[in-house]
């Protein structure tokens, strides 16, 4: 039987029950949300379960939703089953005051840099990461620039007198 979104959803619901929520299929990719405490369990189950076989971590990143109180940061995993060629996406939400999420590095080596990048830009604290330091920004930086509270400079501002760039 070919693996499709419905069967994946059934198998996951069988295992985790109603802990997994917010099932969607935007642009045909199965998307769901897991509590952040069980993100590793879900990843491990998706990896080990022979009928699911999601063994390739395509991408890992975060999104900041400043208006969702208590769930400001979303960590998004994109997984790929290369044999049946199915992709899924799942998210864990965490609050911004103590953004601790378990690290996936034990399962995927590729998560190492991706989690460092996510930490660097959003400040998600990946518990269990072997080397959680900034990767693209300078080490001295004391804020997380991709969060929405840091808007880009207003392009129409006139208070700056810059001879070189004519503003």
């Amino acid at each position: 039987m070919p693996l499709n979104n419905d069967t994946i959803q059934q198998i996951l619901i069988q295992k985790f029950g109603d802990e997994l929520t917010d099932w969607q299929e935007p642009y045909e990719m199965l998307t769901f949300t897991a509590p952040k405490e069980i993100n590793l369990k879900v990843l491990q189950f998706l990896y080990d379960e022979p009928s699911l076989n999601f063994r390739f971590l395509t991408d890992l990143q975060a999104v900041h939703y400043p208006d969702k109180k208590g769930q400001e940061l979303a960590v998004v995993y994109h997984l790929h089953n290369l044999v049946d060629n199915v992709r899924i996406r799942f998210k864990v939400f965490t609050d911004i005051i103590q953004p601790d999420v378990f690290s996936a590095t034990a399962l995927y080596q590729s998560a190492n840099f991706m989690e460092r990048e996510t930490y660097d830009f959003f400040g998600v604290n990946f518990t269990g990461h072997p080397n959680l330091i900034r990767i693209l920004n300078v080490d001295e930086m004391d804020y997380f620039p991709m969060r929405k509270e840091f808007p880009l400079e207003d392009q129409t501002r006139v208070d700056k007198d810059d001879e070189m760039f004519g503003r």
Partner: protein
Amino acid sequence: MSEHILLPEGSIEKQTTTLNLGPTHPATHGVFQNILELDGERILKATSTVGYIHRAFEKLAERRPLYQITPITDRLNYCSSPINNMGWHITCEKLLDVKLPKRVDYLRIIIMELSRISDHLICNSIVGVDSGAYSGFLYLMQFRELIYEIYEEVCGSRLTTNIGRIGGFERNFTNTAFVKLEKFLATYPKQLKEFETLFNRNRIFMERTIGVGAISAERALNYGFTGPNLRAAGVDYDVRVHTPYSSYQDLEFTIPVGKTGDCYDRFLVRNQEMWQSLSLIEQAYKKVQEFKGAESEVFHADSPAYYLPEKKDVYSKMEALIYHFKIVMGETDIPAGELYSSVEGGNGELGFYLISDGGRTPYRLHFRRPCFIYYQAFPELVQGGMLSDAVITMSSLNLIAGELDA
């Protein structure tokens, strides 16, 4: 740092040397650093540092309308910017639900495969340079020039191309473009053949590359390898086959795979892919020629809200003027949605994760840069090897600094 490292049995030096390979070392071919701990000439430990040319693309993209993000994508893997541009256009077209005419798809395949050739050509000839054979580089480089002339004819620029628009191309291919394409197709195979005879069974080259920087298929998958580097390890994963885009499903091609995942296999896989790309271009060109009459003039989709109208219409028609203004000022709201779309870039799966909340700009845009992800494996690949092997491994992985840092 050095006191934590155990020296191997029979160490001559009795102490380690720290060597900075990069950020501006000529052998890195880009701005990134490797701190190597050496025992004599043997590498005990490698630490990679990236981020020297970080340009905050993802932050910038959050304030730009879709069409202004295309020039950003140029600067990811600048050896094959057209693929990045097309990947971004394809992502936008999925979000905006724009259907492309077949002719545009085939024209895009021609451009994408040309840039794949130019990407692999650079990588493979640089592997030659780093192993001491400069002539291959000199011979192949002239053909990158021919490819760049085709880009120039199509879009007006060469390296950072900003080629095409959301919904098609900015103008139809001129006859000169096709003439130049034919010239390339006629001359390149002979040169590539000669390049292969110089290298493929060259004893010195084989000794330098076989078994160097090898990675097993399992490790490669765990490290998130994609593209030629993964295929060299024996996994036939190619986005063009797994999730076809731009009508790749209409064309015949094979996916070359290697076995050992070492520098030599990566070199052979890239060479084979160039042959496949040549055949793809020929097939797509044949299909383009089949369009007759009005169909042979089609070079964009019919989506006035996102595709810039022709200049002469802007000056004479009210509707075109309105659309022109709205597009240029970025005043068109994009539909809300969440989308991951990927293309097979020069180095592997180039993904775009786009979240739109219905505003004028993306709410969040993330680039999945294949280089960034597989660069993590570099310390493992070079550990225990010689310093000169590290240099070859680096160039055969085709690390592009622009793609590392975003």
